[in-house]
């Protein structure tokens, strides 16, 4: 009977499919975690932006200092008090706005790069540990903070 020669390969195929199915269903999801704050702190982009913010604050302070000197030297310095207050208010607002913009942009970039890292390394989940209780326990062997820091800094510097 000719169909007999097909029985063995078909049974093999079905067994293989079954084994693969079982393997796929019982293989645990690949997951890891990283420390959000540590990544943020070690980000090259953050360090560069902090430097920029620092320059901006220095410039603002220089202007405020010159206004103070002017108030002390001119005859009716009290007239300048209002200007001084306005400048302080404006500069504080500018610095606050820029800090918020930079922070939002940095987190957006970190999210994007972590997402890319996960895809490139076949992760099912990567958790960000913020220390607020959202991730209560994780085995240290699953900590990929250092790898994430290296990866995001490389990407920021333009490497693919």
């Amino acid at each position, binding site marked *: 009977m000719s169909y007999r020669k097909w029985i063995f390969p078909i049974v093999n195929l079905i067994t293989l499919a079954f084994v693969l199915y079982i393997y796929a269903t019982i293989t645990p999801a690949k997951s890891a975690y990283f420390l959000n704050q540590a990544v943020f702190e070690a980000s090259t982009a953050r360090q560069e932006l902090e430097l920029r913010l620092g320059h901006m604050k220095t410039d603002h302070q220089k202007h405020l200092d010159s206004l103070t000197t002017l108030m002390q030297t001119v005859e009716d310095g009290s007239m300048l008090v209002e200007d001084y207050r306005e400048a302080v208010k404006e500069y504080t607002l500018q610095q606050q706005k820029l800090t918020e913009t930079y922070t939002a942009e940095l987190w957006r970039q970190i999210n994007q790069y972590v997402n890319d890292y996960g895809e490139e390394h076949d992760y099912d989940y990567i958790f960000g540990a913020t220390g607020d209780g959202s991730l209560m326990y994780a085995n240290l062997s699953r900590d990929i903070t250092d790898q994430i820091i290296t990866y995001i800094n490389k990407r*920021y510097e333009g490497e*693919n």
Partner: protein
Amino acid sequence: MKGRIKFLLHVLWTALLLPLSGCEKALNTKDYANWIKDTDNGLRAKKKVNHHTFDLQYLPAEYVWWQRNKMMTDKEKMREEVPAIEELQYYTLTLGIENDVVDFVDYGVQDHTEKQQKLYYFSYGFQQDLKLEVNGRLLPCALFHFERTLDLKSTRTFVLGFENDSKDTEETRLIIESGWLSAIPVKIKISKKNIPKLRL
């Protein structure tokens, strides 16, 4: 004895091939164009930031010459003219929006006035926000051209030129600091290693 002869032949063969391994390969025009456009070879790099796509292409001097003289096959002329082109290093930067959902110029603008402001910025001001990092030095963009294309593409291309005083540099980095694209700098690295020669 046979083994010794074999060994000597092997040494001789290696010695003959060794200098050749250092030679630059030469490619015909079609293969050359494909080679430089292949992102795996380092002369082209792509990046995504904030829904924007960045596609940076370094254009070797021989490629620039060939683009300007496509019908010409005069090797001597190429050899004469390439050094002048090499005074600058040329790049094209193509900006677009992720998944081409909208035209680059229309993205992030509320009305016609804002669109005009964006166009004006990318026609003139953008040049000031581009720098090339070479060996730790930041070079300003010396040549800038916003290509006005009459097609339906949603991307926009800029031709950029930077001075080229260190021609052997194997790595450069374009730094874009434009509020229209991202609040933080966008850096794109180009690797200029093992560039083949153009065979006409």
